[in-house]
């Protein structure tokens, strides 16, 4: 699978008032991105909301046309050979859409099997196998509207696999699922879909830990631009230092942040939202990129001098989240 200078612009129109004149503006969702995914790889496309992940997936599975560049799936151009591409791909999106709620799970899968021209003799066994795979066999004959969110998501996975696709797109597949179900689903994707069946998977997510747990390689997408691609360990080596301090503090001030940034052993300081309070005071989360763990006392002293109250400290090697913040500047 390959993307060459792939771009996508959306035209956004607005009216000044109900019968006012329309004004159009161009929103660039994808900005000349290039990547290649070898067969059998689980590639993660990471980025915040609105980064262009879903747009990329929709172009690659022929639901959307690019406004620039080219994309190929198994050597087929996604625009010119769209009909061929559709036969070998499938897509699973997060959320509870793309299913017929008034039909049973089994009826849904049989319907999609017909659309994909699955041999008649194979439909029943394939449907049963898929239900077994995702642990839905006992509820296969219930209407989808009676399913829980997690069950609908598992049924979506079955729908995505019904045509035995060579390439599977998973667009935020664990969105809104509870921790245990999401964990099971990740295990299923890694072990059953990639390792056992050897399928090529493009996974999009904004959960960094999910990509870290699953992907062979990742790409960071931010504001439509692909800013880094590689194996996570390779990307981590490119970080200016090997350690990150995660510090939860209260009474954080701009002066304190400036003070930290002036310290010699501190490479980068980022603040992220942390929605919690301690004794009525708001907690801020700091990611402090340091040369070595010996810089810890210096960082804590600095915060203390500036009147900040340290709630907790955690020193660790860089995570994908740190990497993402490093590449995007937070």
């Amino acid at each position, binding site marked *: 699978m390959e993307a060459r200078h792939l771009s996508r612009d959306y035209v956004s129109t607005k009216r000044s008032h109900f019968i006012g004149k329309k004004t159009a503006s161009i929103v660039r969702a994808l900005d000349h991105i290039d990547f290649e995914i070898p067969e059998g790889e689980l590639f993660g496309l990471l980025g915040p909301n609105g980064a262009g992940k879903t747009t990329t997936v929709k172009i690659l599975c022929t639901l959307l046309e690019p406004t620039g560049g080219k994309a190929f799936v198994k050597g087929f151009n996604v625009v010119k050979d769209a009909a061929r591409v559709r036969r070998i791909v499938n897509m699973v999106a997060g959320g509870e*859409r*793309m*299913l017929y709620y008034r039909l049973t799970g089994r009826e849904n899968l049989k319907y999609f099997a017909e659309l994909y021209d699955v041999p008649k003799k194979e439909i029943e066994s394939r449907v049963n196998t898929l239900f077994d795979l995702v642990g839905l066999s006992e509820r296969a004959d219930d209407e989808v509207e009676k399913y829980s969110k997690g069950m609908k998501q598992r049924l979506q996975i079955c729908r995505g696999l019904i045509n035995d696709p060579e390439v599977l797109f998973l667009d935020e597949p664990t969105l809104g699922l509870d921790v245990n179900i999401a964990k099971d689903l990740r295990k299923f994707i890694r072990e059953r879909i990639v390792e056992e069946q050897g399928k090529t998977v493009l996974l999009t997510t904004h959960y960094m830990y999910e990509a870290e747990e699953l992907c062979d390689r990742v790409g960071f997408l931010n504001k439509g631009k692909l800013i880094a691609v590689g194996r996570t360990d390779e990307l981590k080596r490119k970080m200016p230092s090997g350690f990150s301090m995660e510090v939860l503090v209260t009474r954080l001030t701009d002066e304190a942040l400036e003070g930290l940034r002036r310290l010699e052993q501190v490479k980068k300081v980022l603040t992220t939202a942390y929605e919690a309070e301690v004794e009525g005071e708001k907690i801020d989360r700091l990611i402090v990129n340091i040369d070595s763990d010996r810089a810890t006392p210096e960082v804590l002293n600095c915060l203390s001098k500036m009147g900040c109250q340290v709630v907790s400290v955690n020193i660790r090697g860089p995570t994908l989240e740190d990497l993402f913040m490093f590449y995007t500047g937070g």
Partner: protein
Amino acid sequence: MFWRVVMAEVEKNLKQFFFTARTLFWTLMLPLGNGLYLYFLYLPFAVKSVSLEFNASWYALDLVGFTLIGQLLYTFYTMMLLSGATFEREREQGTLEALFLSPANRIAVIFGGALSSALNYVWFLFGILLSWVAFVGVKIMISDFLALFASVVLSYLSLVMLGMCFEALFVYSRRGGMYATMLQEPMMFFSGLVFPLQAMPIALLSVSYLIPLTFGLISMRLTLLGAASMSDIAVPLMALASMTLVFLMLAAWLIGQAERKAKAKATLAQF
């Protein structure tokens, strides 16, 4: 693969529509109100027959039969409009994207949608016939069964093709429902559903002759109630056959355009 997709669409739509036994019951009962409305529309005038002029000949048609055939075909036309509306539901539940993600033949998809509405209509048909037979008798005068058969087949087939156009329209635009609703009343007026066409101002007749419902009503009314032969209704039959072809080609073109537009403007997931 074409017929597999058609049958899958039919099965899916029927299962979704006939979700409960209550739906079945009300499908049978619904035409009753419309039938009574049409019957009482003429009752105060104490007329027993309607004079219909066609091809320089006058036919005296049984009034009940005249309105019954109007109701039969107009209900079918409405069902075809509704088959377009199913795509609105597909859009809302996100299944339109799943459908267009698949390699299924797009014409088969919309044909399956129209066909399921046509099969759904069978229940309405029972309801309409039952209600009319229960209340009043119809004086049927058939002389050419082949002409009647051709009238029925071509009338319904042309409307199925028109239904496919509506479905493509609903994929093309989120305002499909509005356009379809806007077409309901004019269709009723221009087709001569409740009055014979000779009452229509000549300037408006050209609009009537662009509507398959008009020719369907003429040919079915004349063959069922006026003992017309194949040669008497050759013109409306040819018009219906031509419209069937034109609407089929239009539907194929429209669904292609709709998919192209959706891919270019990212509208498949919008609702």
